[in-house]
């Protein structure tokens, strides 16, 4: 009888850690952070190789596609007498330029058929917004065109403003 009592006393002395309040607090914190967090949208890449920085001597095999972006955000193709207005503004939340998209598709297909790398030259007027340039680059990315030249027709005397 006495031996049995000693064994029970030893069992009671053993300290036990109650983990339920810990779990409670953990869940509380988890829910707090879930509710208060705003998920920040990740920024994405539109990567372009600009051969103007590394000019090559060889003449390209394919006639480059020329795009002009004017100060008011209009998109033109070609220069001089052949210049034609393609799009006046991007449409919808996806910012589609339908006519440019069509032209680029034809150009990219033609380049692919001739086993050439499609080349695009872009001339952007100084006051055109970056968003419009980004729209054009977006369409280039859509058609897997990653070789772009920004023609530097602007005066060199642009100063820091």
């Amino acid at each position, binding site marked *: 009888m006495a031996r049995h009592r000693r064994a029970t006393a030893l069992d009671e002395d053993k300290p036990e850690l109650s983990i339920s309040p810990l779990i409670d607090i953990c869940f509380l914190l988890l829910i707090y952070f879930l509710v208060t967090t705003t998920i920040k949208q990740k*920024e994405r*890449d539109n990567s372009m190789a600009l051969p103007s920085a590394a000019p090559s001597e060889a003449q390209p095999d394919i006639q480059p596609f020329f795009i002009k972006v004017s100060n008011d955000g209009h998109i033109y193709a070609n220069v001089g007498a052949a210049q034609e207005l393609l799009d006046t503004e991007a449409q919808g939340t*996806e910012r589609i330029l339908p006519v440019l998209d069509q032209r680029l598709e034809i150009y990219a297909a033609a380049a692919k058929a001739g086993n050439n790398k499609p080349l695009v030259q872009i001339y952007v007027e100084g006051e055109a917004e970056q*968003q419009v340039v*980004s*729209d054009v680059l977006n369409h280039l990315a859509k058609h897997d065109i990653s070789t772009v030249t920004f023609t530097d027709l602007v005066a060199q005397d642009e100063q*820091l403003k």
Partner: protein
Amino acid sequence: MASNKLRATQQEQEDDTQVDMSPMIDMVFLLLIFFIVNATLIIVEMDKRVQVPIARYSEKQNDKMGRIVVNVYSDEFAGEGRFRMADGKEVFADDEDLVDFIKKEKENWDLKGQKSRLHLRADGKVHFTYVRRVIRAAAAAGVNEVIFVSLWSRSS
């Protein structure tokens, strides 16, 4: 000379197999610390004041190596400096400053065997003339790959 009852309880205790968790926890922490110390954490900073344009066909940022970050601010925030570094605090005084910075960063990445790329965070409303100046500075510094940073949508 133990009684039968005592022998029975002793046997019961021996049968009760228990896995000792502490060495496992020790090892897990050791490995955790090893990987934390070894990892090279690269974060491309994003200044909230630059609202980058939207481009649906842009790609995920997979490789964060070799990026030379330049922020270009719209007129709203350009008062303190049009061109700034990744943190949004250090302002580039002029175009030469920009070229020097890109050159220095390029050398750093070259030492690590990485190809340098200009990570251009230009605001959607900024005039292209400023963007072109950064591209020109990068070209002068020998960096010919430009990443135009964009968002997939403006929803969040």
